[in-house]
């Protein structure tokens, strides 16, 4: 801070300003827009343009042929008609929604229980728990996926070995990736394992924010544990819980890396979710128009699922900005 006092004399710093004094208000008005320019340009070209483009592309017939010839063939709702009449799309959509619902519920409930546990244990076990949560959170998704593949490995995986050791001999050589459902279950455990820490920490922070005297007066009034929870903890926790649930839905619905890296949507497409379907149609299959329509539908499903939260969120932003 002392640096501010060793400025050159005001005259020297101020002198270039004098000739432009009349211009100054204008410069000041333009200033915020100049500061915003790089960010706005980047957001518009790299995000806005693709976002508009995905909608436009979804109305085009755009396979590899059209792309290389540079043809624009508009087919209106053709891509949508094709997808919506494809029973596989519905299977995948239902699977994605159910998968998301399961991992979001598991994440939020698990995290809530962990947050309550953290509040009720002494410092040492709490720190041990928090450090191990951080470890799970910090491992990059792809590294985590690889580790889970190794843990669930059919022949040498530690899980099967442990189950056999515990006397469940039928698990010797059991393949966890033989069906789409069990593959998704493994992916789900992986995602929940990495998602719980953030949610648990957030909820724990919210729990610490509940004023202590509320609990004291509840104790004086003779409230039991459950009563205290429903009348004091829950009302304080609910807004934060809504936010983390909303964020979890946003994050989990579009998961691609772990699903693809685990078994590439297999076996036989059994663990294919909407983002994986998009990749298979668009990038691998070069049916760009169809894949774009899948993207648009995917976002629509997401918006429908989250509409209520989105409204609440935007309304609270109006007030806060």
């Amino acid at each position, binding site marked *: 801070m002392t640096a*501010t006092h060793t400025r050159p004399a005001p005259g020297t710093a101020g002198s270039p300003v004098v000739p432009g004094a009349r211009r100054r208000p204008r410069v000041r008005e333009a200033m915020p827009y100049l500061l915003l320019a790089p*960010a*706005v340009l980047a957001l518009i070209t*790299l*995000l806005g343009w693709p976002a508009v483009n995905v909608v436009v592309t979804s109305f085009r017939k755009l396979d590899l042929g059209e792309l290389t010839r540079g043809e624009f063939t508009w087919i209106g709702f053709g891509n949508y008609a094709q997808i919506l009449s494809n029973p596989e799309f519905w299977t995948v959509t239902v699977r994605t929604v159910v998968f998301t619902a399961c991992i979001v519920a598991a994440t939020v409930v698990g995290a809530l229980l962990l947050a309550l546990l953290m509040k009720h244990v*002494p410092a040492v076990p709490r720190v041990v728990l928090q*450090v191990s949560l951080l470890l799970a959170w910090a491992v990059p998704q792809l590294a985590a996926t690889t*580790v889970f593949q190794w843990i669930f490995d059919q022949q040498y995986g530690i899980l099967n070995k442990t189950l056999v050791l515990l006397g469940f001999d039928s698990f010797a050589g059991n393949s966890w990736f033989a069906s789409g459902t069990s593959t998704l279950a493994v992916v789900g455990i992986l995602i929940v394992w990495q998602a719980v820490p953030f949610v648990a920490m957030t909820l724990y922070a919210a729990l610490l924010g509940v004023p202590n005297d509320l609990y004291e007066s509840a104790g004086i009034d003779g409230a039991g544990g459950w009563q205290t929870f429903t009348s004091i903890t829950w009302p304080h926790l609910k807004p934060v819980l809504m936010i983390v649930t909303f964020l979890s839905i946003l994050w989990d619905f579009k998961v691609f890396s772990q699903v693809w890296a685990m078994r590439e949507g297999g076996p036989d497409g059994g663990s294919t979710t909407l983002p994986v379907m998009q990749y298979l149609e668009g*990038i691998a299959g070069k049916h760009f128009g169809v894949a774009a329509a899948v993207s648009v539908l995917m976002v629509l499903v997401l918006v429908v699922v989250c509409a209520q939260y989105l409204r609440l969120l935007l309304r609270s932003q109006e007030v806060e900005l």
Partner: protein
Amino acid sequence: MRTRRIGLSVLAVAIALVFAFPTYWMFASSLKPRGEALSASYDLVPTSVTLQNYATALLGSGFLRYLGNSLLVTLTAVACSLVAGTLAALAMSRFRFRGRKGFLMLALIAQMVPFEALMVPMFLFMRDLGLLNKLPSLILVYWITTLPFTIWSLRGFIDGIPMDLEEAAMVDGCGRAGAFRRVTLPLLGPGLVATSVFAFITAWNEFLYALIFMRSEDLQTLPVFLKTFQNAFGTDWGATMASATLFTLPVLVFFLAVQRKMVSGVTAGAVKG
């Protein structure tokens, strides 16, 4: 009451062990000699320790080239994000102007965009620019994925620095830019570090766009390399776990340094503003 506390403590430690296990297992497996990992025996703790897997991962597979690609792409994108993000955050925090609310909403919505849904237009866009299979394509995408969070996070940090300090410097003869550079920027240091670490982790982990843009093998980044590594090495789980550990280490170090700020940063950026 006492037994209940002990019971809960035991439960907490047990859960901690379960949560830490996969990370431990990655590390433990990376230290095991090849024969031990692929044997029928049951060893939770490696009976003999070797660095052979790390040698295999580092030397036999081009790991260093992918590490170089990852570092180049990630650091450049983070630098771009920080520059554009600081300028934008400054505008939002220090000026009141028409369109300010609109921009805040734009940044908020940008943060919720499911980038996975943009893979087709992004792919076509990079193709039209002739950037497929070139590292700048990834830099651009990682810039835009990290920028909205960077703006929100830095805006929060700048809001926390009293405007009076800048004004005092301006009274002392600094221009607006000078006051910012000499007063606010040094105070913003911790905020810049925390924000850039978060951006670093996001870009460092990214898998989808690296997978679809980089068709040629030597231009891959580490996440895609990890995925293809198993195919290249068959069932060499020891070497796979060694490379996963190496990939995790920088994240772990950074993460532990700034994790406290991350909870508040993520929630603030994503929801509270």
